[in-house]
């Protein structure tokens, strides 16, 4: 598995109403090598910011993030070739009128020949059984179908790491299970934020983010139990249980 390394990563943004910047992430040190990594935490805790760093969508104020040795600031294009990103809302992600066109768009950068591109797009769609939906408007697809289409478009270029930002939030139970099974079959390293604690339990390692810090880092069962107890019993202190 590729290594995603956070070295003393902090992010702070200016505030209009205060001279003090708002700290989104503070001194995060991580080395992520497991195949399945879950990120859980309350809304606004910094989960999405942490994930966006991996793809270079957000740049650290200080510190570095490296994916397989490539700095996400200096080599952002290379990093994005290796790191696919799936957003919560697939409608934000699918930028073409139909799924097939969106998958082909992903391939434009790497496959110059139109016929070859169409064949590769067909294969990518076939992998998820989406051929019959490929020429429908993305607005005519259900939430689950859209999410799978977005996943197919990202995986068409065969990234080594797949980052998913709360991919099941907008899905019903059936589509959530479909997504869960689909993700389980992928070869890519997966880093995924979620509010679905059952999904988090499928991971190899789970990080709990709170107040811009990694409040817990360990096995899924322990992490979920810790998160549950904090949610029900009050917020953790920043120093608690960092392992």
């Amino acid at each position, binding site marked *: 598995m590729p290594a995603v390394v956070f070295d003393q990563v902090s992010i702070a943004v200016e505030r209009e109403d205060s001279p003090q910047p708002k700290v989104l992430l503070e001194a995060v040190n991580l080395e992520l090598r497991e195949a399945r990594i879950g990120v859980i935490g309350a809304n606004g805790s910094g989960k999405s910011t942490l994930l966006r760093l991996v793809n270079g*969508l957000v740049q650290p104020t200080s510190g570095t993030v490296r994916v397989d040795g490539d700095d996400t600031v*200096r080599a952002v294009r290379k990093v*994005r*070739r290796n790191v696919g990103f799936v957003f919560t809302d697939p409608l*934000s992600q699918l930028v*073409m*009128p139909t799924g097939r066109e969106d998958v082909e*768009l992903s391939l*434009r950068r790497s496959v110059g020949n139109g016929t070859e591109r169409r064949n590769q797009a067909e294969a990518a769609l076939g992998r998820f059984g989406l051929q019959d939906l490929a020429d429908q408007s*993305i607005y005519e697809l259900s939430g689950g179908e859209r999410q799978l289409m977005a996943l197919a478009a990202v995986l068409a270029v065969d990234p080594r790491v797949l980052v998913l930002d709360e991919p099941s939030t907008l899905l019903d139970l059936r589509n959530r299970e479909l997504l869960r099974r689909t993700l389980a079959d992928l070869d890519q390293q997966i880093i995924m934020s979620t509010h679905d604690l059952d999904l988090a339990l499928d991971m190899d390692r789970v990080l709990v983010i709170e107040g811009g810090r990694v409040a817990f880092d360990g096995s899924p069962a322990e992490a979920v139990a810790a998160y549950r107890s904090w949610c029900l019993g009050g917020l953790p202190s920043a120093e608690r249980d960092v392992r």
Partner: protein
Amino acid sequence: MRGHGFLLANYVPGNSLLHRAPLAAKFLLVAACGLVSFIIVDWRISAAILAVLGALFLASGAGTKRLWRAVRPLAPVLLVIGLFQWWQLGGPTSARIVLNILVCVVAASLLTATTPVQRILDGVVQLVRPFKKFGADPERFALTVGIMLRSIPFIAGTFADVRDSAKARGLERNPRALVLPVFITSVAYARQTGEALAARGLGEPEDVEPAAKRS
């Protein structure tokens, strides 16, 4: 998001004459329709051109439903324009203006209904390639066209959603309650699209060693 307000028809797979026609010919057809709408002064000729384009659309196998969906979102606007022009310039001129707008929309829909977007994008790339020596990036041009095609139904759908929510609050007559949310949603959509493209590494320059440090 409703997103049903399509202004241009989506690609419909098929093997009709129009599907097989060269992209350049279809581009020229659209350009010619745009041009003649400035030249024609007789509403009967406009009606005849619209009838021919409508027949071509149906012959392509795209169907009446898609044709209707392509022109339906325009109906209220055309009604306002038509009535205003009737009052100002009389019936024949009003009819000519409305029919010419429909000619342009149906011609553009013919192109998008019979040509996959990727082929349109390839065509744009070829068209812009000579300008590469002046610094133009053909792929970016193509991407812009592709995103425009996707954004039109999004904004039309947003307007429908906003109109419904304004109605639910009894604000359907308040222009601010209609325009402002559409504007804000469109800006947010543009930002999200930019982020989605960036995440996929589309439309961005090659890696360079940054001269400036990160802040």
